[in-house]
């Protein structure tokens, strides 16, 4: 089976987020880049399915040339092919992103049996790109999945709900958006990383098309510093009586 996994390059923020002066994005000059853990799990699900059923796993991202790095992470996790829908680095909204991905799927040589997405992107968290791609391609879509199996052309997908799991059964081709926890993504071996570096990435220029209405970012804001300068209860085990006091008098849990 042929599986496509869509991922997004995002800054790997630490304990505090710093914005650029124009307040349009995160100041990433001192940061590395990564993708959402949901998407890492989506890649893992894709390569596991291909290992079990044969076929190819392709990773795709819409982003700047540097997003090549995230595609190579996917290749190092043993995905077979990579596609970059290359932009100039300006952020695309969820509708334009979804339209461009759907068009790339239509134009591709493969007929994908399964398209995998993260449930939401780490940075923008729009909760919609996978669903929009599915609707545009006329495919069924199951969102927020934490277990996935494929048997005889049917995807059996589980979503976590309070006290258990809801199970969906969908005929392929289909779109599935996944959540972290569905599997444990593999660590790429040194060798896989080396060979991923040499692999070809298919580059295309996407069309920006987003339909009527607008949803556009005006500016970002880092919420007022929550640093409350915590009260230090003490150092080492000597602090235990003070901890108990807090538990007893303030929080009233003992």
């Amino acid at each position, binding site marked *: 089976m042929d599986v496509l996994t869509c991922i997004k390059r995002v800054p790997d923020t630490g*304990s*505090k987020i710093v914005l650029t002066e124009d307040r349009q994005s995160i100041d990433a000059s001192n940061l590395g880049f990564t993708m959402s853990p949901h998407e890492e799990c989506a890649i893992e699900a894709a390569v596991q399915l291909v290992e079990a059923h044969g076929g190819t796993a392709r990773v795709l991202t819409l982003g700047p040339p540097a997003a090549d790095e995230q595609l190579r992470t996917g290749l190092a996790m043993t995905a077979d092919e990579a596609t970059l829908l290359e932009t100039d680095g300006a952020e695309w909204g969820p509708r334009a992103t979804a339209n461009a991905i759907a068009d790339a799927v239509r134009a591709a040589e493969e007929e994908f049996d399964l398209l995998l997405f993260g449930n939401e992107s780490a940075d923008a968290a729009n909760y919609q790109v996978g669903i929009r791609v599915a609707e545009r391609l006329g495919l*069924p879509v199951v969102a927020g999945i934490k277990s996935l199996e494929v048997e005889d052309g049917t995807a059996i997908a589980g979503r976590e709900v309070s006290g258990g799991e809801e199970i*969906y059964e969908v005929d392929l081709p289909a779109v599935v958006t996944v959540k972290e*926890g569905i599997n444990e993504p593999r660590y790429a071996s040194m060798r896989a990383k080396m060979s991923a570096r040499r692999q070809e990435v298919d580059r295309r220029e996407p069309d920006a098309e987003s339909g009527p209405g607008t*949803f556009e970012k005006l500016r970002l804001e880092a919420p007022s510093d929550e640093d409350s300068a915590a009260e230090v209860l003490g150092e080492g085990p000597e602090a235990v009586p003070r*901890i108990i006091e807090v538990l007893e008098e303030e929080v009233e849990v003992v």
Partner: protein
Amino acid sequence: MILGFVEWEAGEPLETSLQMLTLARDVADQTGTSLAAVAFGEEGAAVADHLGEYGVERVHHVADDRLTPYAPAAWGQALADLLEDHRPEAVLAPGTDRCQEVLAHVGATCDLPMAADCTAVEAGDAYEVTRHRWGGSLVEHARLEASTKLLSTAVHEVPIEPADVPTDPTVHTVEPTVDAEDLRVQVDRREESDVEGVPLGEARVVVGGGRGVGGPEDFDQLEELADLLDGALGSSRAAVNEGWRPHDDQIGLTGTKITPDIYIACGISGAVQHWVGCKGADTVLAINTDPEAAIMQKGEYAVVGDLHEIVPELNEALREREG
């Protein structure tokens, strides 16, 4: 008309839906229009009895057996029908898994933009919405302009407020135009989980462990502390990645968001992606060797030191009290 998508359980609206209705009423007031709600399923009509308190004037009840059990695309189609018939100015939905998903279907079928996880709206011709990014560690101001604006509300961000003047909502039954294609995805069955103890998301006390715990065995001390406090055990993503804890334990952006009375974070640095999962705690107490760790600044209480020395002593003291 502003339309709110209300989820319910046992005939009563969920808290997240009441939070959404509070914001929806604010938008209706700003735009001088009426507030309506839509509810799915058997008891959807009974829910109307609880919505007058929040200023809802009309409840659209989607009572179609084909839509029970839950079917996201079909629910989206039912909402799309309401959009077509009533042309609401805006549709608001709580930012729960299901509502977020159904609203995205509406956006896709009607080709409308959608803004997720909003906390405030300034309604003019276009709306200026305030919304969460990175799980709330960043706030975005965005412009949303469309014939019908679609927005979901971030959960537990808008305090629930009843209307000044309660209403007596009328109930209208809706027959959606769903077809077989809309029903390709539908809940087939439910499997109960066998996990015991207090679920992390509902626990009053949570003890969390991170990379500083050092290994899987040392989580025993934290588990004991959680037990002594009738709480649940959680962890950072680093501890999950190390293979020390299962992913179900993970607190944070891509894990569980907790709302306990107290969160005791041990050997966790407090990266933004972890913090967004635990900031809903009333009190955060951090135990860390590094007084400069972010979590030691962000929380209410800090204890500087080695968790391997502090936690066993704390357990001992708690056992003695129970003794």
